[in-house]
């Protein structure tokens, strides 16, 4: 969104293509480190971004995710999930990241049937039930922190020791309706039409255990939405698009910004700044053509 604002202010003929407005930020409960706001909810901040985008004459296609990118003799063509094609002299990829999946049997089939990747959204649906939170980082600990207050019992399953902030870990250890399984992996999500349980395996002993749960909150990190750039430009081992400090990929005219790239520190303020940089670089590039 920042890139689009910068681009249009440089009088670049700009098209903003996105599946939605808001990305990861929208599900962030509270933000205290985006300058200008001492505290703001992610939803509200993204509403403000969206309003700011809409005050400029930016052509938008919201609701269309870009699924493919190809090079033309003089520029690029992108294809969206509804089959539309658009051509441009320069492209900025700012597609961010999405929740990582476990990739275990039952996960896809029972998605939105007890398997959830949005604890802040779906958490209250599981009040009074048994649930499992998968992961050991801050997002998992925050989900666990919310769920111990409303669920009958919370099982926390992490491949590693808990890696989140100590303040969240301390809170975790004090809950009476919490059982933590460290160095355990989830091998299956079970249930016919709704989640009925999960099977976990101890990484040290290989011993398997079934946990009866109605909800599975998967909070195991994020993966970049970089599939469209695969085979077009270089990705690093994490699947992030490789850019230099000017947001340029190895392909002239192709830029990338924010969490989808290899830049260090995935933060809202950093991603917004990178978007601005990418648009200004794209402007320079177009001027040189």
């Amino acid at each position: 969104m920042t890139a689009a604002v910068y681009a249009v202010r440089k009088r670049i003929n700009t098209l903003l293509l996105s599946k939605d407005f808001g990305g990861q930020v929208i599900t962030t409960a509270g933000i205290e480190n985006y300058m200008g706001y001492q505290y703001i909810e992610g939803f509200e901040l993204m509403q403000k971004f969206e309003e700011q985008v809409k005050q400029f004459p930016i052509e938008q296609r919201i609701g269309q995710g870009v699924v493919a990118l190809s090079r033309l003799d003089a520029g690029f063509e992108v294809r969206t999930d509804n089959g539309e094609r658009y051509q441009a002299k320069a492209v900025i990829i700012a597609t961010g990241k999405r929740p990582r999946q476990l990739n275990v049997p039952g996960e896809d089939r029972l998605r939105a049937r007890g398997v959830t990747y949005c604890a802040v959204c779906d958490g209250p649906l599981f009040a009074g039930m048994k649930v499992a939170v998968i992961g050991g980082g801050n997002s998992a600990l925050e989900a666990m922190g919310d769920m111990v207050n409303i669920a009958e019992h919370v099982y926390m399953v992490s491949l590693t020791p808990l890696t989140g902030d100590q303040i969240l870990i301390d809170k975790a250890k004090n809950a009476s309706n919490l059982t933590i399984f460290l160095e355990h992996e989830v091998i299956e999500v079970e249930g016919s039409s709704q989640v009925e349980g999960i099977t976990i395996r101890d990484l040290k002993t290989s011993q398997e255990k079934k946990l009866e749960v109605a909800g599975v909150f998967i909070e195991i990190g994020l993966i970049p939405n970089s599939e469209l750039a695969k085979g077009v430009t270089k990705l690093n081992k994490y699947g992030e698009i490789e850019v230099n400090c000017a947001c340029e990929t190895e392909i002239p005219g192709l830029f990338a910004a924010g969490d989808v790239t290899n830049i260090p520190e995935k933060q809202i303020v950093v991603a917004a700044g990178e978007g601005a940089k990418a648009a200004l670089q794209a402007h320079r590039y177009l001027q040189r053509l």
Partner: protein
Amino acid sequence: MSAKEVKVYSTPTCPWCKKVKKFLDDNGIKYQDFNVAEDRAAREEMMSKSHQLAVPTTFIDGEVVVGFNETQLKEKLGL
């Protein structure tokens, strides 16, 4: 203007639920809102009709849209 029956099943904490409701408000669509975090009967109704346990779940003349999907919402509302 659409005269379709629209029901939104949501939780108060869910940002995508707010997006759905804002989208409907912005387009002048009237809807019934059910807080499934507290309204157990609505929660059961949502599950039995959609076989889904996720919010936001929106019914438009009985057709279901799970999550905030602007394309699907527009299509089903005839916008």
